[in-house]
């Protein structure tokens, strides 16, 4: 199904389509569909592709012009993501900085910070990593223990962060620290911007279950950053962190959506090839997989329609991630079953084909960005208004 976002954005869409047709060629075209939120494959090619996009001024479509963006609206951002996914262009290496850090700085950062940090993000000159989770603070993020103390004009940071996606490539980190040692939970936290090129920052890759060095652990030992590197107010780090998390912009799930649709089509082709469509049990599961991706699409379209109409997104914006992640895993299990014994054979150096990689990486989708259990708490408490668990 082709989506048409209306006459107002048709010129924008056509400009983008033409640009992609001209530039998504050669090595970039050979890497169509490569990469993902937890997939660091072909990093150098993807980085070059991000620079190509940057040269065409396609990064930060919705960011203000003064920081290098195009200054366009939400609808254009959505059209960009849709057309981008439709062209199956490589997954952008700058997604984390542009989707998470950028909006945080735009909303909470000082003018100096915006001028200093936003243009290099769009120019793909500085890459960013997120320093939120810790070994002892996963779903319970408010229990972070990484300490930051003032020392003259500097903050001195000690602690450990983990699950930093593509952390080995990061030039800077945005780090949630505890600046008030006597504080509890959400209080006394501060968001700091920390350069990685210093002795006090040690970043080590962690190999994920697909065999990729995709995320990292970060050791901070007397790492330093300037006093002016606080985002928002000192002591208000929780507010800074939460201010941009969980804002459903309708753009996040769209690229993933088209990938899932391609996988569902591939699943049907595979089933046809294997003669599995005659098996009523498999047939049922195949139809259900198709139903799932179609429902995800309509759910996304509902959210997009609400946002572009200036309405508050409905409950589906909160339930979409739980549904999509769970159903995508089911789709992966089915694809692996249909692939049979041949699907169990990998290439040299644990080289995975598209199906194997997507299946294995789908296991992260119910964990990152708030695990399914946390999603259920959020739905239960924030959407349905059920009482919180009493703290012991």
């Amino acid at each position: 199904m082709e989506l048409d976002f209306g006459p107002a954005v048709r010129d924008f869409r056509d400009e983008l389509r033409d640009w992609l047709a001209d530039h998504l060629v050669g090595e970039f075209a050979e890497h169509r569909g490569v990469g993902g939120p937890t997939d660091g494959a072909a990093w150098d090619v993807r980085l070059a592709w991000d620079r190509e996009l940057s040269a065409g001024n396609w990064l930060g479509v919705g960011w203000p012009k003064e920081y290098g963006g195009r200054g366009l609206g939400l609808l254009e951002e959505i059209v960009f993501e849709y057309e981008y996914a439709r062209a199956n262009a490589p997954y952008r290496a700058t997604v984390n900085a542009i989707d998470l850090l950028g909006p945080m700085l735009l909303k909470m950062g000082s003018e100096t910070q915006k001028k200093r940090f936003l243009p290099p993000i769009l120019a793909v000159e500085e890459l960013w990593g997120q320093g939120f989770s810790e070994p002892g603070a996963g779903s319970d993020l408010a229990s972070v223990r990484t300490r930051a103390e003032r020392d003259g004009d500097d903050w001195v940071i000690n602690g450990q962060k983990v699950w930093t996606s593509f952390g080995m490539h990061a030039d800077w980190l945005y780090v949630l620290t505890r600046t008030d040692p006597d504080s509890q939970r959400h209080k006394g936290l501060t968001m700091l911007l920390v350069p990685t090129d210093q002795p006090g920052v040690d970043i080590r890759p962690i190999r994920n279950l697909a065999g990729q060095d995709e995320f990292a652990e970060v050791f901070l030992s007397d790492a330093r950053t300037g006093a002016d590197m606080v985002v928002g107010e000192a002591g208000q780090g929780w507010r800074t962190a939460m201010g941009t998390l969980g804002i459903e912009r309708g753009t996040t799930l769209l690229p993933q959506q088209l990938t899932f649709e391609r996988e569902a089509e591939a699943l049907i082709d595979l089933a046809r090839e294997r003669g599995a469509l005659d098996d009523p049990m498999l047939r049922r599961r195949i139809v259900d997989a198709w139903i799932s991706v179609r429902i995800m699409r309509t759910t996304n379209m509902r959210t997009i329609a609400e946002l572009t109409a200036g309405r508050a997104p409905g409950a589906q914006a909160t339930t979409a991630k739980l549904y999509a992640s769970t159903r995508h895993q089911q789709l992966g299990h089915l694809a692996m079953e249909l692939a049979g014994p041949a699907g169990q054979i990998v290439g040299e150096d644990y080289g995975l084909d598209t199906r194997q990689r997507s299946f294995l990486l789908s296991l992260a989708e119910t964990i990152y960005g708030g695990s399914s259990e946390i999603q259920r708490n959020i739905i239960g408490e924030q959407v349905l208004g059920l009482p919180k668990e009493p703290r012991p």
Partner: protein
Amino acid sequence: MDLTFSEEQDELRKVVRSFLTKYSSEADVRRLAADPRGYDPGAWRRMAAEIGLQGLAVPEEYGGSGFSYIDLGIVFEEAGRALLCGPYFATVALAAETLLRCDDEQARRDLLPGIASGETIATLALTEDGGRWDEPGIRLTALETAGRWQLTGVKTYVIDGHVADLLLVAARTPSGISLFAVEADAPGLTRALLPTLDQTRRQARVEFTDTPARLLGGEGEAWPVLERTLATASVLLAAEQVGGAAAALDAAVEYAKIRVQYGRPIGSFQGIKHKCADMLVEIESARSAAYGGLWALDAGDESEIAVSAALAQAFCSEAYVLVAGDNIQVHGGIGFTWEHPAHLYFKRAKSSEVLLGTPSYHRELLAARLGI
């Protein structure tokens, strides 16, 4: 592309909800569940006269208001939420839709204004003893003698067939499936109310013996009309199922907030909280399935309508059953009683699940339409 509701549509929802709060309260539902007619003629008349629901989506030239399917979907969602008892689904989703689809302008002019005004209760008599909604399931025969058609045979599981003034009957003629209109007082027609597990939606068995009937559209040309009608009805039923499921979740959540065990509201336990969250995931997904169908109907894209209608029934039927069942589970013992309304929703969910064919049947329809 507009996949959200307008302010006018929000207003329509409010009007319908407030009407149904007044005329389809739990007390009304229980009273009508025990009433042989299964509906309240006074409320039916007011529904037409005060807010015009019977003619909402009937084009203005036939006495209706010409609203969209999304508007109509809002009404069905609210009807499902309120467990509205009565021949609304049969009259609007089945009969009016059949007339709109069949190639018979005269019949539309003759029959639709009565439906739109609330004077005529109508239904579609398609299923027979086999309970099948497909073409081979239609066995009742029509014979033409001297330019007059007569029907002989049995239709059963006819929704609200016991109170319908007008029955649209699918019958087999020498050239295939044809559609006929039969008045309730036609000679040779007898009908009997079937006692149903779900007492909020009635079914009847209708027998025809040389019953005179009016041919609608071309002889042998009715199956595509019926197939298309069933697609629309599938989407509208899905909207009704979404409304019912949402009401069941609301009840579960309200109870989970006030019911205290082990010194705290049971909704604070993840065992209950996460169940309720999963119920909402099902409902919002079902909502997407149903709304996708409504949007396709308004866009008029035939292949998209065929696909999204089958999808809507395959998904929403099971979602409603699951949520209505979980609502009983959250309520515990009290949810298992006759006096608590949870079973009314559960039984409506179960009857709706098979009303236009089972979820398995709709999955097969979907597979065929997708070329799987």
